[in-house]
Each structure stands twice: as structure tokens, then as C-alpha cells.
């Protein structure tokens, strides 16, 4: 591996992430991966990577990187200034950075996280099937930790890469979506322990605005607001934690479990954020307002299929003959990336 980028400023919290580490829960190993997986996937598509390549997850901007060799990069996620050698390049635009160039992420105006994808994908060891960093367990990524000044990261050969892409005109990142009143709407499906809450409490949670607390991290988003009342206390026999679970500990204020969620837990759970809306968790910052809305399980599935379709249609190949589309094809439960170029 030859060095590709050197960290001048790591920002408040930057770590290597891909789409996470499924299949390791039974060993007590959390899923991890990009909290806003949609932005990571799109950033990868823009530089010609597979959607699951490892990229840099940054928090609240303030990052500076120096390139040690020519590298194509793209940034997606929270809106804010992105410059290369002082020139604004913006989000969603792949750029070839020259050796000695400096990429700067300035302050961000809304949202929380940005993803910097590098052509080829970041080269850190694969641990249990993933390059994602699990910070609390010091696992994966670069030595299992957040990046610090003078760290040098390499990229993998770009042989398997495709051409660069740009975003289709008018594309709006679903992870940053807000309703008319500026709230982040999270769709949820029914939980498995309604009887552990007093009658009507789940509905009261669904009818309340919640404020994102400062005590939120990659593991969980803590919310301030209506305290739900339990029927038989908040403690349960510890059990596996389903993706998207919204825990309600003794305080009654919910915690939405995110990427680094523990695999098992002993608190009651009210409902589960649907898979299509989980990437929005990556863009929640303290004092944002969150609202839950209950949907049926089939609608939740439909929403995920729609999100996949949106991602497959959101980029256009640069210099290609026609519109490139990447499709996700599911055959017998295995997912294949299929690329279609419209040349007629």
C-alpha cells in the first residue's frame, strides 16, 4: 500500500466506514458502518467505486486532507463548503486531486456527517468481513480508532472501478429530507413489546416532537421530549437488538439505536425505524427535531425498494454515451449490482 492522503486536520470525529459488518451479531460484534449509508453509497458511485467501498465518515466538517498522489475524490452528505486548494468544488462532484492538493471541509449548515470517497476505496484491513471502524471495540478501520493528525491512508487499486459519475439534476439527498416544519420524519414499524407500555403511551410518543440530545453518537441518538410510561418497568430480560430499534430506558425518553448499537440489550423497545429511514439518523445533529410516524411492515419494505431504486437512478456517467444506471438485482436473496447504459 502506498500512501494516498495525509490527515492535516481530522475534525471532531472521522473514521473509516463501509456498509458495516453483518453476520457478526452472535459473537457480540456490532454492525457498525456508515450511519448515513445512502451518502456513502452515492459518494462511492460518483468516483466509480462499488457502493460498499470504504470511505471516510466525518462529523461536523472541519477536516483537511493533503493528497500524496493523484486521486479522484467526491464528498456527499451534510451541505457545507468543500474546497480543493481554496477552490469550491461542492458536494456530489468527483474531482481529481493532484499530489500536494489540499481538500478542506468547512463548516456545515445543516446535517451532521459527510462522506469522502476515494477512487479505489480506502485500503485498511478487512476485519470480520468489513473495513468499518467499531470505535468502542477498537476493531476494524485504521487501528480501530478515529483518525488523528498525520495519519496516512492508502487506497486500493482502481482496476475494478467504473467511470466517474455526476448526480442527476435536481437530486435531493433523502438523508437530509425535512418536513414543512423542518422536522426529520422517521417512519417506524410496530415493536414487539407494546404490553410493556401503559395504554396509549406509544401513541403519545408518535404524537410528540422530540429534540436530539448532545449525548448522541454513532451508537445511539438520544432524544429529549415526552417520557413514555412503562407498565412493568423498563428492564427486560436481555435480548438481541433489531436494526432500527428505539429503546426506552427508565427515564422514558427514547434512544434510537444507530450503527454501533450493541448486539443485545436489556431495555424495553417501543418500535423500530424502518430500514429506508435509518440513513437519516446519520444527519441528525443536537437540537434537530424528530417526529415518528407508524407505517405497516409492507410499506416499510416498499420504502426500502423505492430507496434502492432512487440510488440506482441518481447518477449519470461522465463522458459515457448515454445514461448509466446501476440496478440492484435480487436473485434468491443474493444481491447483484447490474450496470445498464442507455445507448439508443
Amino acid at each position, binding site marked *: 500500500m502506498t500512501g494516498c492522503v495525509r490527515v492535516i486536520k481530522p475534525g471532531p470525529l472521522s473514521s473509516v466506514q463501509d456498509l458495516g459488518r453483518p453476520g457478526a451479531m452472535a459473537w457480540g460484534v456490532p454492525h457498525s458502518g456508515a450511519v448515513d449509508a445512502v451518502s456513502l453509497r452515492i459518494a462511492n458511485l460518483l468516483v466509480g467505486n462499488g457502493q460498499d467501498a470504504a470511505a471516510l465518515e466525518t462529523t461536523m466538517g472541519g477536516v483537511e486532507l493533503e493528497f500524496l498522489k493523484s486521486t479522484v475524490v467526491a464528498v456527499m452528505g451534510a451541505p457545507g463548503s468543500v474546497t480543493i486548494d481554496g477552490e469550491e468544488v461542492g458536494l456530489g462532484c468527483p474531482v481529481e486531486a493532484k499530489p500536494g492538493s489540499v481538500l478542506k471541509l468547512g463548516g456545515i449548515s445543516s446535517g451532521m456527517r459527510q462522506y469522502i470517497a476515494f477512487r479505489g476505496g480506502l485500503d485498511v484491513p478487512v476485519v470480520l468481513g468489513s473495513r468499518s471502524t467499531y470505535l468502542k471495540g477498537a476493531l476494524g478501520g485504521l487501528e480501530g480508532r478515529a483518525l488523528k493528525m498525520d495519519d496516512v491512508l492508502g487506497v486500493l487499486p482502481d482496476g475494478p472501478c467504473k467511470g466517474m459519475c455526476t448526480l442527476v439534476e435536481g437530486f435531493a439527498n433523502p438523508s437530509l429530507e425535512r418536513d414543512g416544519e423542518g422536522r426529520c420524519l422517521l417512519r417506524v414499524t410496530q415493536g414487539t413489546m407494546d404490553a410493556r407500555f401503559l395504554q396509549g403511551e406509544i401513541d403519545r410518543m408518535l404524537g410528540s416532537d422530540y429534540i436530539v440530545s448532545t449525548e448522541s453518537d454513532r451508537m445511539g441518538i438520544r432524544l429529549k421530549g415526552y417520557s413514555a410510561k412503562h407498565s412493568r418497568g423498563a428492564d427486560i430480560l436481555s435480548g438481541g437488538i433489531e436494526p432500527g430499534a428505539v429503546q426506552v430506558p427508565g427515564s422514558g425518553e427514547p434512544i434510537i439505536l444507530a450503527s454501533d448499537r450493541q448486539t443485545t440489550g436489556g431495555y424495553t423497545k417501543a418500535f423500530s425505524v424502518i430500514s429506508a429511514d435509518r440513513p437519516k439518523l446519520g444527519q441528525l445533529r443536537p437540537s434537530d427535531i424528530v417526529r415518528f410516524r407508524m407505517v405497516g*411492515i409492507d410499506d416499510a419494505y416498499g420504502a426500502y425498494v423505492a430507496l434502492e431504486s432512487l440510488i440506482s437512478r441518481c447518477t449519470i456517467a461522465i463522458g459515457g454515451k448515454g445514461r448509466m444506471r446501476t440496478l440492484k438485482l435480487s436473485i434468491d436473496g443474493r444481491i447483484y449490482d447490474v450496470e445498464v447504459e442507455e445507448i439508443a
Partner: protein
Amino acid sequence: MDYRLITNASDDSVLVRFEERIDPEIAGKVRQAGLLVSRARLPWVTDIVPAYNELLVVFRPGSVKPSEALLAVKEAIDMASEAEGYKPRLKRIPVCYGGAFGPDLPEVSRHTGLDPEQVIMLHSSARYLIYMIGFTIGFPYLGGMDHRLETPRLTVPRPKVPRGSVGIGGKQTGIYPLDVPGGWQIIGRSPVNLVDTAMMPPVLLSAGDYVEFFPIDEGEYSRIQEAVEAGRYSIEDLELGGSQ
């Protein structure tokens, strides 16, 4: 199987819940359900997570309709199975009790009114069932501790408990696979590695199996530690045979 509930816990998971109590028999059913789901080789399943009275089956979102996943899991565990049950294995883990490795042994002795030697004898003569792995990587939730050893947790948790530490927290006992903050009374330490991400599986212990601890002295601790570091130490798997 006589589960109480089977339902989608999210659009990418199915939950099977059994009677709510800590009981080796219930744990056996959970383990058996997990084995049946695993044998059904459902291609969209990513994780099968057994716990005290629940089995969580997680799948890739969008790869199967949640209602179809529910049906497939239900079919797998409802199959009147003549297949063999889960054969639990036993792992015997060496522990150096007391001294610098077990700073809270005197406190456990004081609280329980037992001599330190009796504490060690009781702790190392039980066979513990691993109900589940969770909390952190490779951490076993064990059942079967002698009630005479029950000791409350520390009032102020330690910021860092060294990996391999063996502790008592209330009615529970366990072993810390990694350096983590913890509030259990630490009575000893094992030189054995419970987590090695380069190995498959990456953790020594799995739910449904059993653990015994046996006392070693400091000299033996050093010898085993050296062997572990040189990659020359492994813990033999003892088959207990039959379904539990």
C-alpha cells in the same frame, strides 16, 4: 415449537419469543430454534442471535418481503424435526484467583462470610451455561453460579477492567473478553484469549455451550500466557452429548 410470539421486529428481522424466564430449558429451545433456522439455509439471513428467551433473525433489508421472511422462519422452527438437537460443548478455562489478578476476592469473602478458599472452590466447581453473547464482543452471560457467592456490584465502576478478568456482579458471574469499564467484583483473571478477530469464529465462547473455571497459580498463569502469546495454547472442546 411452543414459542409465545413470532413476529417481525423490524422490516429486516424476525423475532421468536419464548416464555420469559431465565431457565436452561428455555435457553435450550432458543438454541434449537436457532439451529433449525440455520439449517434451513435461508439465503437472505445475515444474523441469528440467541438470547435468554428470544431468538432474533436478521436479514438484508429489501432482499425478502418481511411477511415472507416471517413465514419461512416459522416454517423452519415448526418443522417436526427428527434432526439431532444441539450438542453442547464444554470449555474449561484456567483462572488465577485472588492476589493482583483478583483484587475484590477479599470483599467477596467479607460479604459472603466465606473464606477466600471456599469462594474459589465454589466458583470453580460449578458448570455454567452460556445463555447468550452480548454487551461487548465475546462477553458471555453465564447462569449457574452458587447463590452463596452473590455479591453486589462495586458502587463506583472501574474505568478499565483488564481483559480475562473474572467477576461477580449480583447473581451473575462472567469473564471480560476485552479491556472495558466494569462494575463487577473481580476475583481472578484468565490468561486465555476470548477474542481473536483473525480466527473463525472470532470468539472462544458461544451461546448454548458450557464453561467451567479451574484454579491455577501465578506460575501456571505465566506459562499459559506465554503459550497463548506464542499461539501454542488452545482449549479443548469437550462434547457433552445429547440435547440438553
